[in-house]
């Protein structure tokens, strides 16, 4: 087949793949993925080099970590934790990603704390927030939009951030 021609799009459709995969496992009701006609938008309110930037991940701390030190990390609830405490890596083996072809041993491949700190040191951004946030990949849209999102917004406001980057696995 010619390298520059294809009968199908090259990008993987995870919606199609997962529907077929779980269908083959006998699940008759396909997952209802989030679909929104409109998406929110707000331009930055000040120059990037004056902005405090935050990160949101879908990874969690390993259960061996003392749960009392991390708010809400014991169960799958949204949490806020110090970036310094994530530098040894986070737990995500329970999440849906390509374990055959890659790994998550390098934190900055899915939560670029070190890279953003370098950008802060260079003056490209004002700073990286001291805390990052975790959000569960919940099956329930209702829990995501009514419980998790408002909690993340509350963390963002407590930390007086100008922008957050969501990096789902």
């Amino acid at each position, binding site marked *: 087949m010619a390298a520059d021609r294809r009968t199908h799009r090259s990008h993987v459709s995870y919606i199609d793949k997962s529907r077929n995969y779980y269908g083959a*496992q*006998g699940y008759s009701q396909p997952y209802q993925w989030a679909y929104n006609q409109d998406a929110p938008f707000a331009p930055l309110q000040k120059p990037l080099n004056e902005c405090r930037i935050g990160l949101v991940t879908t990874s969690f701390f390993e259960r061996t970590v003392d749960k009392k030190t991390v708010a809400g990390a014991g169960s799958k609830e949204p949490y806020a934790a110090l970036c310094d405490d994530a530098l040894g890596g986070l737990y995500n083996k329970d999440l849906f990603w390509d374990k055959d072809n890659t790994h998550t041993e390098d934190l900055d491949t899915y939560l670029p704390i070190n890279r953003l700190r370098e950008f802060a040191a260079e003056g490209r951004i004002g700073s990286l927030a001291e805390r990052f946030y975790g959000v569960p990949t919940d099956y329930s849209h209702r829990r995501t939009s009514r419980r998790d999102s408002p909690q993340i917004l509350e963390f963002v406001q407590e930390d007086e951030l100008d922008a957050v980057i969501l990096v789902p696995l």
Partner: protein
Amino acid sequence: MGSARDIVEECGVSRFLYTDFPLGNPAGKPGDIEMQSAITGMALDLLERAWKPRTTVQTPFVWDPETNDYWREHFMKVDESNQDALAAAGEQRRIAQATVRSEGLGRG
């Protein structure tokens, strides 16, 4: 920042930096600090410069030109070779879930 393009674009977000990699490393390849910086830098560019919602920018990186079709086809593959095994795995999972529910251990 992400690699599941269809899921993110169907959901709809303000700005989306897409890297066409296997799921797991949306911010760059393991050990490749230069690539990670480039990808995170592009996310910052997008934050700064996008002026409309649903702005998707694709990074120029390729996972592996030799094996790109392999990981795409292999992930969550369903064909004649594994159909029976998948059906059996699904059945076992449903039984395990029903047991957890009947014992009141899970939240469903």
